[in-house]
C-alpha cells in the first residue's frame, strides 16, 4: 500500500488531528473494557450498595461452573458451524453469479438484502418459520415424519440459531467472495483450461487459492460475528434455551449480568471472551495469513 508521509512543523497539530478518533476509542472502547476488567475482580450485592474486591474468585468460580463450560462448548459448535455454513454457501452463490454477469446484477441485489435486516428481526423471522405451533416448516417436516420442536430439543434449537445466524451473514460473505472472484483474471482460468484442468480442478487449484486472502479475511470476520454479533438472533429465537442448549458465551454474559445481575461474574466472562477472540485473531494472523500470501 502506498503511504504518503507528511511532515508537521508543529508538534501538537498531529495529536490534535488524531484527538477525535482517540477520544472515541478511549471513551467507547478502552474505558468500558477497563471497567469490565475492574469489575471482574469485584463482587457487588444485587442493589449496588457494597462492592468487595475478591481477586480471581469470579474467574475460578466460572471456570468450575458446568453451565459456563457448557456455553463454551455451545459457542465452539455454533461459531464453527455458522462460519462453515455461511462461507460455504456464499462461495457457492458467488461462483454461480460470477458465471452469469448480466442477470447477476438483480441476483446480487436480492442476495444482499438479508444483510440490511436487523438481527432481532432475523431472529423473529426464523422463530415464526420454525415455530412448532404455527410455523410452516415444522408442518412440512411433520409430513416427512420429523417432529420439530426446538423448545424441547436442544439440538434442534442449536440448528435453528445456526441457520438464522448463517442466513444473515451470507450476504456479507457473498459480496466479498464475488468481488474476490471478479478480481481473478479470466485468462488464468482460460490458461488452466488449455492446460487440461476440468472446471472442478480449475476452481480448486487456481481460483480458490487466489481467493485465499478474501477467505482468510472472512474467516476472522465470521468467527467474530458468530461469537459477538449473534446476541440479537439468539435472544429473539431461543433465548439460550431449552435447558441452556443454545447459551453461548456472549449470551451468557448478558443473561448473567443484566438478567441475573451478577455483574462480577458477567464481567469476568466478558474478559475471558475478549481474551479468546484476541488469541484466535493473533493465531490466525500469525499462522494462517503467512500461508495465504502469494
Amino acid at each position, binding site marked *: 500500500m502506498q503511504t504518503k508521509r507528511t511532515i508537521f512543523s508543529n508538534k501538537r497539530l498531529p495529536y490534535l488531528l488524531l484527538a477525535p478518533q482517540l477520544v472515541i476509542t478511549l471513551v467507547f472502547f478502552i474505558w468500558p473494557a477497563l471497567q469490565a476488567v475492574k469489575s471482574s475482580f469485584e463482587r457487588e450485592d444485587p442493589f449496588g450498595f457494597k462492592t468487595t474486591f475478591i481477586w480471581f474468585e469470579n474467574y475460578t468460580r466460572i471456570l468450575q461452573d458446568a453451565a459456563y463450560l457448557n456455553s463454551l462448548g455451545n459457542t465452539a459448535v455454533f461459531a464453527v458451524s455458522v462460519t462453515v455454513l455461511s462461507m460455504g454457501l456464499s462461495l457457492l452463490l458467488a461462483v454461480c453469479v460470477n458465471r452469469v454477469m448480466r442477470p447477476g446484477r438483480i441476483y446480487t441485489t436480492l442476495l444482499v438484502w438479508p444483510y440490511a435486516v436487523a438481527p432481532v428481526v432475523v431472529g423473529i423471522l426464523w422463530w415464526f418459520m420454525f415455530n412448532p405451533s404455527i410455523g410452516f416448516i415444522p408442518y412440512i417436516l411433520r409430513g416427512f415424519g420429523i417432529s420439530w420442536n426446538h423448545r424441547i430439543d436442544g439440538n434442534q434449537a442449536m440448528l435453528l440459531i445456526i441457520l438464522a445466524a448463517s442466513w444473515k451473514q451470507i450476504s456479507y460473505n457473498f459480496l466479498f467472495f464475488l468481488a474476490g472472484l471478479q478480481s481473478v483474471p479470466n485468462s488464468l482460468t*482460460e490458461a488452466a*483450461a*488449455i492446460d*487440461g*484442468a476440468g472446471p472442478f480442478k480449475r476452481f480448486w487449484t487456481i481460483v480458490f487459492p487466489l481467493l485465499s486472502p478474501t477467505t482468510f479475511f472472512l474467516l476472522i470476520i465470521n468467527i467474530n460475528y458468530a461469537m459477538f454479533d449473534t446476541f440479537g438472533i439468539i435472544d429473539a429465537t431461543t433465548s439460550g434455551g431449552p435447558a441452556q442448549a443454545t447459551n453461548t458465551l456472549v449470551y451468557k454474559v448478558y443473561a448473567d449480568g443484566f438478567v441475573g445481575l451478577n455483574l462480577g461474574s458477567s464481567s469476568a466472562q466478558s474478559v475471558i471472551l475478549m481474551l479468546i477472540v484476541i488469541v484466535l485473531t493473533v493465531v490466525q494472523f500469525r499462522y494462517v495469513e503467512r500461508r495465504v500470501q502469494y
Partner: protein
Amino acid sequence: MASIHVENVGKIYSGGVRAVSDINLSIADGEFIVLVGPSGCGKSTLLRMVAGLETISEGTVSIDGGVVNDKEPADRDIAMVFQNYALYPHMTVRQNLEYGLKNRGTPRPEIDARVAEAARMLEIAQYLDRKPRALSGGQRQRVAMGRAIVRKPAAFLFDEPLSNLDAKLRVSMRGEIKRLQRRLGTTSIYVTHDQLEAMTLADRLVVLDGGRIEQIGAPLEVYHEPASTFVASFIGSPAMNLMEGELHGDRLAVGPSILNLAGYAPTSGPVTVGVRAEDLRLATSAQESFLLRVEYVEELGSQRLVHGMVGDQPLTVALPLEEALQEEMKLTVEPRRLHFFSRETGKRLTMPGSEPVRSRQVMGAVA
C-alpha cells in the same frame, strides 16, 4: 506438429453482433502465421476460436485433419501464450510449467526432463523456484512461453504476447520467439496489432479488417503488392501515401501535377494512387513531377521524413540526408512503383495481362 485449416469460419456474439465472417485459412505444418489488424478487427476472436475459448458460430476449424469445433481447449493439443502472461501467481515457476503436464498424467521423470529442457532453452533455470511476482516482465514472458513449450503441443497460439513489454525488450523477445519457433518447428498463430512485429515474425501474414481477411501473403508480398487501400495504409511505416488521382490514357493527374506512366496505367478514370515514401525521389527540372509544399520534417537519423501537401492532399516522402531541403520540392516516382486502387471498393487494380500478382495467387490457393 500439425496443419490447421479454418473453413468459412464466422463468429456472431449473442445479441447478433458479428465479429468475424467468412474466414478461410490453411496453415501448413510448421508455418508461422501472423494475424494482424487494428483493434476490433476480430483477430483475437479468430485465435480464441482456434483455441476453443470462444464457440465457433459458423464454419469449421480442423487441427491435424480432425474437426475440433466441439472439442474442449484441453483436447485440441494447442498451447497459448496470453498478453498478460496468465501465469498462476500462487505457484512457483516450476509449478507453473508442470501444471499442464500433471493434469495430463505425465509421469514424473518425464515432467522433470521436459521442465529442465524448457528452462535451459529459455534460460530461466535459475528462477524455477521463484513466484511470478518476483520476476521481471521479460522473465515472465519466458515462463509463459516455457509453459507452452513443455507441453509439446501441435500448435502455439500467441495472443499479443509482447504488447506488455517495453520497446527494447519487445525487439529482443521478438527475435527469440522467431528463433524458438524455427528450432521447434511448431505450427504457430500469432496475433498482433503491431505491423512491424507482424512483418518480422511471419512466414505469412493475414491482414484482417472488420472481421474479414483483407490479404494473405508473405510479408514482402503484402508490403509490395497490398491488395487494398486498407492493407496499403496499415502495413509499412510510414504508411503508404494514398492520394486521389485521375487516369487519362497514359497520364496520371494528381491535383495540379501530371505524371506520364509509360504504359503502366491499369485502367482509366478516377483511382486512388498509392506510393511508398521511399519510392519517391527528387526530380530533375525537366521531369514531370509532383510539386510538394513542405510542411514539416521528421529527422530519423538515417533518413528524414518530409511531410507536405500535393495540391490539397498530404504526402510523405523519405529522403536521404544529403538532399537539401526546400520550401517546395519536385518529386518523381518510377511508374511501376505506383499502386492503383479502385475508388469505390478500395481493391488493388492490376494491369490486364501483366505480370501475375503473387499475393493474389496465394489467396487463390487458399480459397
